[in-house]
């Protein structure tokens, strides 16, 4: 725990499946606030780069740490049809410090995941000019 406060640490959060709807959208936030969005949809890849201002970055880190991003684990229960994966990775360079594959519907049973995904959705929307997610 506490890795997210390290400026050399990056966070990746991916939501969705490539073959449906808006595809799989990955938001990567580096420790210096630079961001990278990758949308993989139906065989196409769309990428966007941007940088968060200091306040937005600090707020994101606060939301991720306050909601135990590095402790989230899948509930291990069956999913309803249509549910999509939420992949979380915390990295220092190539070293994976934490990773988990959760399910989107779990946000409705785990308020921590819901809080993280709400922040993810608003950031992705802001950084994509409202085109995503």
């Amino acid at each position, binding site marked *: 725990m506490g890795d997210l406060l390290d400026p050399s640490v990056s966070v990746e959060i991916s939501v969705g499946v490539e073959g449906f709807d808006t595809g799989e959208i990955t938001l990567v936030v580096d420790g210096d606030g630079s961001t990278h969005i990758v949308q993989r949809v139906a065989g196409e890849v769309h990428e966007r780069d941007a940088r968060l201002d200091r306040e937005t970055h600090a707020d994101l880190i606060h939301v991720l740490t306050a909601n135990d991003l590095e402790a989230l684990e*899948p509930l291990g*229960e069956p999913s309803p049809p249509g549910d999509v*994966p939420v992949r979380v990775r915390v990295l220092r360079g190539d070293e994976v410090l934490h990773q988990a594959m959760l399910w989107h519907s779990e946000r409705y049973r785990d308020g921590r995941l819901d809080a993280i995904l709400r922040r993810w959705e608003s950031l992705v929307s802001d950084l994509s000019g409202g085109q995503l997610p």
Partner: protein
Amino acid sequence: MNLHARESEHGADHEPLAAKTAPTAAPRSPAAVADVLLLQRQIGNRSVGRVLGGFRTLARNTTTVSNPLSEARSGGLAPIAWTSSYDVDFTSTECLVTVRVRLVRDGDVTEEQQRTVETEAQNALRRVWDRRFELEDLDTHQRFTIGVHVQFVREHEHVTVALHSGARAQDLANWSVQKPPTSRAHELGHQLGMYDEYVDAQVINRATATSPGVYVDHSVMGNYYREGADEAVAQLRHGVRLADAIGRATRRRFRVSLTPGPGDYVAPAGDTRVV
């Protein structure tokens, strides 16, 4: 796939409706009138007329179709699992399928948004699923058009759906207000017993574009976002699954055929299968 149809003749939540809506029921209470008006709003005047017409000619004999379904995921991941359930009533000419949904909105979703989603769902279900298939009873040779309707209820639901704001990812049990109307027909397709038909690398039967569970033929259960939501249709294989489940629950054997519909680009009308 393990399909177990469970038949139950139940009347508690249906007999009052039949009694209230039958033309000979007298006198109609305000509650009965309200029920008819609610039905008219939910499934349309023509559909209510068809339902009432059916009650005039046949005693109500509702069967609940209920099938546990699942799809395995790879890598030891928990499976996808749900129970498809709905009611079936036969009139002299129709097989009426009714899905009762209890829609529970989040605090940040307005009543108006909920009503809009309900209307979208009714219209989308009508466009994609209603009167799409015809059954022929192989023993009596009677023919029935499959009518499919959704009712939004506060109790006696087949499925509970949470309604969320925004355009977040949906599943059978979680809808979002900003998703397109066709998505309502897609999610309710699961409740009718249909599997997803788009590529999902984690699902064994749909892991790649050539997997047996993947279809690219304007299926409403496929990636209609890519193929065109307005062209999304129910295909004959869906009618076969529906007829199979109804047949098991009612202990009847059917031949199922496709009726032509707007936007039907792929499956030829008149194509038939025996289940």
